[in-house]
């Protein structure tokens, strides 16, 4: 392994592959970004050209700012994403701890039941969910989205986290018990920090689909004051005319917060890996 790493040809090949992959992955983002700063004509005539003095225009951003309450949509998306992630991580980790740490009757069954949700897409139950939200009066509230996304994210979270928690040293938890720590303290202070990489993984996995989702916002919370960013951007896409300037600008701005969240979580991921040290 070390010889493979130090061999310059291998290193070059490895970096080459990674760079190509990065370019491919970033290309659409790059195209969206540059075109959001161009006039409509130029977008269609030369979609790959960089904006220059002639083609530069902020008209898309101006439209987005004027039309609809873009900052509110932004805020809604943010609240829904962060709220759902918080609940997924909190409840997922708690359930995972119970399943991996305590021996009780039906432990296995409970684990299987919780994992079942991974295989059954939640959208199948959309009608039932809508009926439920109507009867509880949660339609057109952000809570409707947060609850649905939490339910959607929990199965995988429990599955991944319980696997990781099984690997946390029993001795460490037992040392805590002998020193008089409560189960809650053991969970929050000893176990959670050690599974931080897994938490970050779960967060990243769940964050993107929630942020980008159109389905549930459209069905459960289409009201003006609860629109999410993705839903809000749809006003620019018409059946006959699409305001590409506005769509591209809205998308460019939507990328930013996800990027920031991602950077935060991946930091955690790296720190978690390098700071364990039980033995």
């Amino acid at each position, binding site marked *: 392994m070390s010889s493979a790493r130090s061999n310059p040809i291998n290193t070059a090949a490895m970096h080459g592959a990674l760079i190509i992959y990065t370019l491919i992955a970033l290309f659409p983002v790059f195209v969206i970004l540059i075109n959001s700063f161009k006039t409509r004509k130029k977008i269609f005539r030369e979609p790959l050209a960089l904006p220059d003095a002639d083609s530069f225009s902020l008209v898309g951003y101006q439209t987005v700012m004027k039309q609809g309450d873009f900052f509110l949509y932004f805020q809604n998306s943010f609240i829904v994403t962060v709220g759902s992630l918080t609940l997924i991580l909190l409840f997922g980790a708690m359930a995972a701890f119970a399943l991996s740490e305590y021996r009780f009757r039906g432990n296995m069954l409970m684990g299987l039941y919780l994992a079942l949700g991974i295989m059954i897409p939640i959208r199948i139950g959309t009608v039932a969910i809508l009926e439920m939200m109507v009867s509880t009066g949660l339609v057109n509230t952000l809570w409707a989205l947060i609850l649905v996304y939490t339910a959607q994210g929990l199965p995988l979270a429990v599955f991944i986290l319980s696997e990781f928690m099984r690997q946390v*040293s029993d*001795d*460490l938890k*037992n*040392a*805590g*018990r*002998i*020193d*008089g*720590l409560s189960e809650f303290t053991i969970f929050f*202070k*000893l176990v959670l*920090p*050690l599974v931080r990489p897994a938490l970050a993984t779960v967060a990243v996995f769940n964050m993107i689909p929630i942020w980008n989702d159109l389905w549930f916002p459209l069905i459960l919370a289409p009201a003006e004051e609860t629109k999410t960013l993705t839903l809000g951007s749809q006003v620019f896409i018409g059946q006959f005319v699409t305001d590409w300037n506005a769509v591209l600008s809205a998308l460019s701005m939507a990328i930013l917060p996800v990027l920031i969240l991602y950077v935060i979580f991946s930091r955690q991921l790296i720190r978690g890996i390098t*700071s*364990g*040290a*039980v*033995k």
Partner: protein
Amino acid sequence: MTALTLTNVNKSFGNVHVLKDINIEVNEGEFVVFVGPSGCGKSTLLRTIAGLEDVTSGEVCIAGNVVNQTPPSKRGIAMVFQSYALYPHLNVRGNMSLALKQAKESKETIEERVAEASRMLSLGDYLDRFPSELSGGQRQRVAIGRAIVRHPKLFLFDEPLSNLDAALRMNTRLEIANLHEQLGATMVYVTHDQTEAMTLADKIVVLRDGRVEQIGSPMELYNNPANQFVAGFLGSPAMNFLPAALLEDGNPNTLGVRPEDLMLDDAGPLQITSKHVEHLGGDTNVIADCNGHQITVRLFGQHAIRSGQSLQLRIAEGKSYLFDPDGARLS
């Protein structure tokens, strides 16, 4: 006074019966070592004493009180784990003082006890370091320090030395022996290393398959093992077992002889062919074949024996043991 009494302790995990009718009594100030092969239930026994596992039936008494229902932190015990199990988010001082903080001890007491423990274990320079910044030996000392500061009635050690290298293991072993002397505390120590057991223990408990095979002082067990298992487990190199029929026709029993009780003697009754010779300087170990059975002979001093050489042996007077086919001791 007895520091620890186990009465008919049984422990099952589901259908797996791990501990079977354990009865042990430990006196105040004693150093007791549980030994046995891997998987025999030593750790499980220690964890039931600590209260980390509930007993299925039976009674655990610490310092005269039945503690079956008492949580681990209230049992007056401290435990040192094989994997050190230091809290990664706390520095050495924090690791040592956590239990006292949980018990709501005053600041002065905590400081005093941490200072005392770090002096005993020479950890003074490391108090502000985090576990990830310490070597294996230092981590194990911190783990021991964390136990000392609690002033427990009972120390529990679960193979505390098995992650250390040979030289460090020997030093730490001496350190633990010193601690026992200084503190005069009762200690229960689990190991599968019979050298540790012999050197540290006042009393050894030999376990096999969740059962107590024999309890006694190291020399009692060495000189007077109750059965073939105990005889073979203690002592290094291990005792030789040969069919008694080699010496006496038709005898169905097994003869046990320690390697050091075999003597070179041209008129001896046992004929062996040496297969491998270990020259240790002070001793010479001859691993040899005796009618298809492997036996080890430990000769004092240096001997020029080649492999493949034929030798005659005799057994030192009164130094042989006889076990019946089930392993029970006959004489």
